[in-house]
């Protein structure tokens, strides 16, 4: 890495469908712009490395989540977010909408990140905590902890926590 070269790191802490987008969009774009990128997956962000993703979102406690519908924008009152199956239905609706609007899937962005040689670090502590092993994950992630990340961050120009 030349001293002129900018680099970026992202701590990925959330694994819902909506929150999975910012880290993968920024990582792939930064890599495309020539920046070495490291993503550190911890807590609920860790499952984003699982081989099979079936990402879901919830409207619970998220009054800003309004979907374009019938010419307007509709949200879901919190009381309805407790209806069984509603999260799955909302997630399906969001995925359909994304597909229609030409928004990449998380699987696609993740593949592009791997292809662009984004460095993926799986938090060892979270692996232990939630009982995952590297066999559950896609090819590519390495294991590391807080010190591994801090070393990366001291060298990076952009450090994000998402």
């Amino acid at each position, binding site marked *: 890495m030349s001293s002129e070269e900018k680099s970026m790191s992202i701590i990925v802490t959330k694994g819902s469908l909506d929150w999975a987008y910012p880290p993968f969009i920024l990582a*792939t*774009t930064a890599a495309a*712009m020539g920046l070495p990128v490291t993503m550190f997956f911890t807590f609920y962000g860790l499952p984003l490395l699982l081989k099979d993703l079936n990402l879901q979102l919830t409207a619970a406690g998220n009054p800003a989540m309004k979907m374009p519908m019938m010419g307007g924008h509709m949200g879901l009152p919190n009381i309805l977010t407790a209806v069984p199956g509603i999260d799955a239905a909302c997630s399906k609706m969001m995925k359909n909408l994304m597909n229609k609007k030409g928004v990449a899937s998380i699987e696609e962005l993740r593949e592009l990140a791997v292809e662009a040689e984004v460095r993926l670090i799986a938090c060892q502590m979270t692996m232990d905590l939630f009982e995952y092993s590297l066999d559950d994950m896609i090819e590519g992630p390495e294991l590391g902890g807080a010190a591994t990340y801090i070393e990366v961050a001291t060298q990076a120009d952009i450090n994000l926590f998402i």
Partner: protein
Amino acid sequence: MADKTLDAKGLNCPLPILKARKALKDVPDSGTLEILATDPGSVADFEAFCRQTGNELMEHSEDGGTYRFLIRKSA
């Protein structure tokens, strides 16, 4: 005539940029890549992409909702 053309119509951020980066790999140094896109955000994004990567945005235009970019790959 560009050395290569990328049709990124219908794709949303950040796919036009990601696909352009990949397509540039198949373009010889100092060669040109033409990109067609419908994402209005791609105008600002291709300008930033080119500033950051040192490739030259030679021209960009818009016709009926389709944006056309011509990028010269840095040698």
